[in-house]
């Protein structure tokens, strides 16, 4: 694969972004552990952050994309902190991290 212009650079990075996002999606869909779900979410947001930075680099607007990437990182951090608190609360209530055991609201 010839890689010398910005367009090809974008597509090469794009392929890897898709693959990392697939890993995140698969982790969220298949796992039955709460913490692994968070790890899947984290992988997805990392793929998005990389895509934002690459788009900025290719379009020549790295400064703006950088500020947007910082916003995404802050939001991701808060989401994981709150979600970790929720996971800990669920663990205190049901004594397990298994998603299938959370049946208190089952009708």
């Amino acid at each position, binding site marked *: 694969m010839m*890689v*010398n212009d*910005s*367009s090809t650079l974008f*597509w*090469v*990075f794009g*392929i*890897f972004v*898709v*693959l*990392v996002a*697939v*890993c*995140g999606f*698969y*982790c969220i869909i298949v796992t039955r*552990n709460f*913490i*692994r779900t968070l*790890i899947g979410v*984290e*992988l997805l947001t*990392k793929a998005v*952050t*990389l895509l934002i*930075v*690459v788009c*900025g*680099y*290719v*379009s*020549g*607007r*790295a*400064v*703006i*994309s*950088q*500020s*947007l*990437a*910082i*916003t995404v*990182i*802050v*939001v*991701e*951090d*808060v989401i994981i*902190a*709150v979600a*970790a*608190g*929720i*996971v*800990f*609360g669920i*663990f205190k209530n049901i004594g397990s*991290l298994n998603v299938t055991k959370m049946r208190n609201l089952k009708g």
Partner: protein
Amino acid sequence: MNIDLLLLTILLACSLWAVLTRSLLMSAIALASVSIILTLLMFRLDAPIAAVFELSVCAGLITVIFVSTISLTKPITRVELKQQTKARIKRYWYLPVIVFALAGLLGFFMVFPEVPSLAALPDLDVKDVLWKLRQTDILGQIVIILAGVFGVVVLLKEKMNHDGE
């Protein structure tokens, strides 16, 4: 570009490791290594401040959050682990197959259209963009951080006893 390809391959390998490994602690460490590789890529893509954020927040703070959550909760016993291993392999063996098949498909059969380049902007500094052009983002970030702090405080608050202590 060769270094970029190498870093991207390591990034993908680390994300696969994070998903496929059995131990949650190893998974958290793999996630931290994904962050570190992402930091290197960001440095190479002219985004040093975002890279520093990624390194300090994602590789540092989030790993600490994950490790403390894992240590505060009860790990599964060896017997349970043995019972789950077969079911786990059954559920997870599709992932490497999907990833490699998708990589092959995208790499060899996809046509790469030209990406349009935008008009050049006047020379802007990241500080100017953050504090002048995108002030609303900063406001939103502050609100989100406050919401997160209050959320964590409410969630982790110890239950009060009847005396209100």
